[in-house]
């Protein structure tokens, strides 16, 4: 499913949209960046509460389709600027991570 469709189905707010045609293949939930580095897969939509700047580097290294900040935890401007520079889709949801992941799972596995 492409990112644009996922954004609509999961009701995500778009913070940075660089490639909404990108295929979302799955999801990954973690706030522990070493865990994401080890286990997230290319094409995952990554749901997190972690807002450190390293999120962008880790997301790029794992080639995730985008990052969703859950529970309305909007990242700072330097994170957003870095996402633009590194071409990383960023999204925000006011919903808790559990709800975001549930919606994503339903969308990908109807």
């Amino acid at each position: 499913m492409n990112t644009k469709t996922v954004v609509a189905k999961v009701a995500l707010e778009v913070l940075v949209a660089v490639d909404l045609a990108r295929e979302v293949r799955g999801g990954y939930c973690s706030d522990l960046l070493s865990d994401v580095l080890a286990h997230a897969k290319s094409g995952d939509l990554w749901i997190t509460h972690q807002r450190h700047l390293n999120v962008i580097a880790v997301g790029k290294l794992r080639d995730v389709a985008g990052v969703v900040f859950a529970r309305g935890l909007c990242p700072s401007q330097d994170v957003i600027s870095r996402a633009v520079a590194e071409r990383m889709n960023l999204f925000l949801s006011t919903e808790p991570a559990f709800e975001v992941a549930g919606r994503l799972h339903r969308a990908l596995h109807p």
Partner: protein
Amino acid sequence: MRWWRADLHIHSILSPCASLDMSPRRIVAEARRAGLDLIAVCDHNAAENGRYVRRLAAGTPVVLMGMGIQTAEEVEILAYFADEEDSLLLETELQNSLPDVPCTPELFGDQVVVNEEGEIARRVERLLLSPVDLTLSEVVRRVGELGGLAIPAHVDRVPGGLLAMLGLFPEGDWPWVVEIAPWTSLSDVYEAWPGLRGRPILRGSDAHYPEEIGRAWTDLYLAAPTLDELRAAFRGRDGRAIQPGPELKERQ
């Protein structure tokens, strides 16, 4: 100059996760038993018991003021100060920024300030294990402004280790120095994080129980066991050196 043995990561009874036996008096006794020349008490977002440990130790061992700060990212930073007032000022700032979550002793343990007489000076109501409302870069900057040294604790360990939590080193020259856990071997840490090569590495006991004090240490080649000398050793000035002790064989 000579070698001094240091354990710069000891929790006291003020950390809810530490034993009730970790009173200032007991910490001093155990540090002497372990032959330590220099120690620091690093409670979670708290420094107060350090001053009682320092008074009781009366120079044997030398006591740096310390703190283990939980940043907003939940990274644990060890902060060291020469001066009591600087560390206590930071403690107040940090504790005022903690979420209003009470420490339920049955669940988390007690958070008690104990003076040199062994009396309870006060209990801290808010849970000290919570992260403060400052990001990692804000914590590092504030510690520096107050004349302290900020070092990431047990970088490879969950919870709280910088590299475990954030995956990679942050941008910039900080941290120049890192602490590793008692069980981490230098070869493993270099293999997992090649960026650590060439950086000074401290090993601390992260003691939560009296018998753990001095179970892991760092030897420091300094003119005197002071914060300024430690700072000079971090840059390898004039032959000063830092040598972490061996790792513990079994994770406890």
